[in-house]
C-alpha cells in the first residue's frame, strides 16, 4: 500500500458564538491516497466545507492534525504553509465570487505560477486555458465577460496551474445548470487522469459524487457517519442517515418507485453535543443504545459505519468494532 498523500487525524473545529460554542467539526479522521477522488458529502451545516477550509488553512484548527506527505500543516508557520500551497489547491463553489473581478483571466492564471516561481512564458497559460476547453481569446477577458460555466472552468484552470497533488473541490458544480454540470464533471475526471490528482470533492449532490468519486464519506453534524468505496456506500447504504439521504433524492424516471426514509425535523444546531449517535433525535429506528457512544463498525473494504444497523449487515465482523470517541 502506498503512503497516504493527506492524513487528517481527529480534526476538531469549534467556533465561539456569543456565549455558546458551535462544534462545526468533531473528530474527523480520514486519509486521501495519491490519485484518488474522495467525496465528502452531507447537508448544509454538517461541517464538510469547514473541514476543507481547515485543510487549506483558511481556518485554524481547534484540535487535530492535517499531514500532507508527512508535514503537519497545522503545526508549521503560515509562510511555510504558503510555500506548500502549490501542492494543494482549491476550486471554489461560486464562480461569480471566486475570481477577482479586476483580474483578466491571464492575470488570474499567471499569478499562482509567479508566486511559486514557476512562470516562464505565456505559452503555459495558453496550454492551461485549452486544457479546460476554453480558447486563447478568453485569456484577455475579465470575469464579467464570461458565462458562469466559463468562469468555473477558469477556476478549475487556476487550481491546476501549479500541478498540485491534491485539489479540493467545494461544490464546484452546484451553481451550474445540469446541462453544464456534466461537462465540468467530465473535465475534472479528465484532468485527474492527466495529472494523477487526488480530489476531495465536497458536495451535497450525491449523483455527481457517485460519478466522480472512488470513495465517499458521509458527514452529519461534524462527524463522518459512514465511509467506504462509492459503490459500497451507494448500493448498500447502512447508516440510517445515508439511507435517508439517498432515498430523498428524486429519481428522474417515473417508472421507478421507491420507499423513502423520512427523517423527522431538521438538523439540530451544533451547539450542544449529545453523547451517542448524532442522528438520534431524527432517526425513525432509534433505540436506547443509540444514546451511548456508537462504535465504528467495519464492513470490509474500508466500508465503515457508525450505526447499530451495521451489525445486521452480512459483511459485519464483530471483532472489528472500534469505538470512536464523541467528546
Amino acid at each position, binding site marked *: 500500500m502506498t503512503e497516504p498523500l493527506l492524513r487528517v487525524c481527529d480534526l476538531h473545529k469549534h467556533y465561539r458564538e456569543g456565549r455558546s460554542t458551535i462544534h462545526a467539526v468533531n473528530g474527523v479522521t480520514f486519509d486521501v491516497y495519491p490519485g484518488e477522488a474522495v467525496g465528502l458529502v452531507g447537508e448544509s451545516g454538517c461541517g464538510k466545507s469547514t473541514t476543507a477550509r481547515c485543510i487549506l488553512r*483558511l481556518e485554524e484548527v481547534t484540535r487535530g492534525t492535517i499531514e500532507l506527505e508527512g508535514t503537519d500543516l497545522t503545526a508549521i508557520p503560515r509562510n511555510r504553509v*504558503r510555500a506548500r*500551497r*502549490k501542492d494543494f489547491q*482549491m476550486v*471554489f463553489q*461560486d464562480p461569480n465570487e*471566486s475570481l477577482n473581478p479586476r*483580474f483578466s483571466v491571464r492575470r488570474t492564471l499567471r499569478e499562482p505560477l509567479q*508566486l511559486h516561481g514557476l512562470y516562464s512564458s505565456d505559452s503555459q497559460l495558453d496550454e492551461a486555458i485549452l486544457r479546460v476547453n476554453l480558447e486563447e481569446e478568453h485569456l484577455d477577458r475579465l470575469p464579467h465577460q464570461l458565462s458562469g460555466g466559463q468562469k468555473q472552468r477558469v477556476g478549475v484552470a487556476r487550481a491546476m496551474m501549479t500541478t498540485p497533488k491534491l485539489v479540493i473541490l467545494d461544490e464546484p458544480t452546484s451553481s451550474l445548470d445540469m446541462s453544464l454540470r456534466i461537462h465540468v464533471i467530465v473535465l475534472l475526471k479528465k484532468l485527474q487522469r492527466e495529472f494523477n490528482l487526488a480530489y476531495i470533492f465536497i458536495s451535497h449532490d450525491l449523483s455527481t459524487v457517485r460519478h466522480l468519486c472512488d470513495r465517499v464519506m458521509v458527514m452529519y453534524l461534524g462527524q463522518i457517519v459512514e465511509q467506504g468505496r462509492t459503490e459500497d456506500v451507494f448500493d448498500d447504504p447502512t447508516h440510517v442517515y445515508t439511507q435517508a439521504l439517498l432515498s430523498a433524492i428524486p429519481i428522474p424516471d417515473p417508472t421507478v418507485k421507491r420507499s423513502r426514509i423520512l427523517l423527522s425535523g431538521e438538523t439540530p444546531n451544533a451547539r450542544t453535543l449529545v453523547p451517542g449517535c448524532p442522528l438520534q433525535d431524527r432517526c425513525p429506528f432509534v433505540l436506547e443504545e443509540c444514546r451511548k457512544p456508537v462504535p465504528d463498525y467495519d464492513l470490509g473494504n474500508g466500508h465503515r459505519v457508525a450505526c447499530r444497523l451495521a451489525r445486521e449487515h452480512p459483511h459485519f465482523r464483530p471483532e472489528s468494532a472500534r469505538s470512536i470517541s464523541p467528546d
Partner: protein
Amino acid sequence: METTLNPRAEPKTGRRRSIWFRGLSEVGRWRLLSFGIALILIYVVIALVGPELAPYGPNATNAKATLQPPSSDFWFGTDKFGRDIFSRVLYATRLDLGIAFSVALSAFLIGATIGGLSGYFGGGVDDVVMRVVDVLLAFPAFILAMALTGILGDTVPNVIAAISIAYIPYFVRLTRGEMLRVRTRQYADAAVGVGNPRWRVMLVHLLPNSLTPAFIQVTLVLGWAILDAAGLAFLGLGITPPTAEWGVMVAEGAQRIITGEWWTWLFPGVAIVIIAFAFSIVGDGLRDLLAREER
C-alpha cells in the same frame, strides 16, 4: 397578502437615489452627467490658461477706476481698489481648484489606506481607528476645518491640510466598509489559496476592489473643498486678502451689498456655485451609475 407574495420583497442593497438624478430618464441622466463634466473641464482649462487670458494682474490696482460697474473695459467691474474682478476671478480659479484637488487627493490617499488596512486586519487597531473616525465625524467637516486652520495658521498649505484632515474620516469609513464586504468574498480566500502572502491579498486583490465608493466620494469632496476653502476665507480664516480667491472676494464684496455694488460679490459667488454644482452632479451621477450596475 401582498407582502408575502411579492418576489421583490427582498431587501434592496441599492444606494439612495441621488437628488439631482431622481426622476430623470436614461437620456436625461447622461445629459446631466455630461453637462457636469463639461463644466468641470471648462474650469480646469481656465485654471490652466486663465492667467494668460486675464487682461490685468490680480492685484493691479487702479485708483482712477474704483468700484466701476461691468463695462467693456472691466467685464465684471472693479472693486474698491480698482482691481479688475474678471482677472481676479480667473486667477482665483487656479488657486481654488488647486486647493480642491490637493484636498481630495490627499484625503483619499490617506483615508483609503487607513480604511483598507483597518478593515482588512481588523482587531484592536480597527476599533481604535473607528472610534477616532466616529469622533471626527461627529463634527461637521467645515467646523473641524475651521478649528484646524485656527490651530495651524493662515497659509494655503495649512488650509489644504486642515480641510484634508476634515475629510479623511469619510474615506476611512467608506473604504473600511467596502473592505469588510470584499474581504469575505470567495476570491479573497482564493487568493490565499494560490499562495499569496497576506499583504499581497490586501494590496493587490482587495484594496482595488474596495475603492469604488471612495472614488465617487472624491468628486463630491472636490466640490465641498471649494466651498470650505471659500467659506473659511469668507470668515477671514486661512486665505487672507489681498490674495485673489473666490471666498476672499465674496467677503470683500459682501460689505458692498447694501451700497449696491452687486458685481463685487456676485461674480466670484457665481464662480463658486457653478463649480460646486458641477462636482455635485458628477459625483451623484457616478453614484447613480454604480448603484444601477450593482443591481
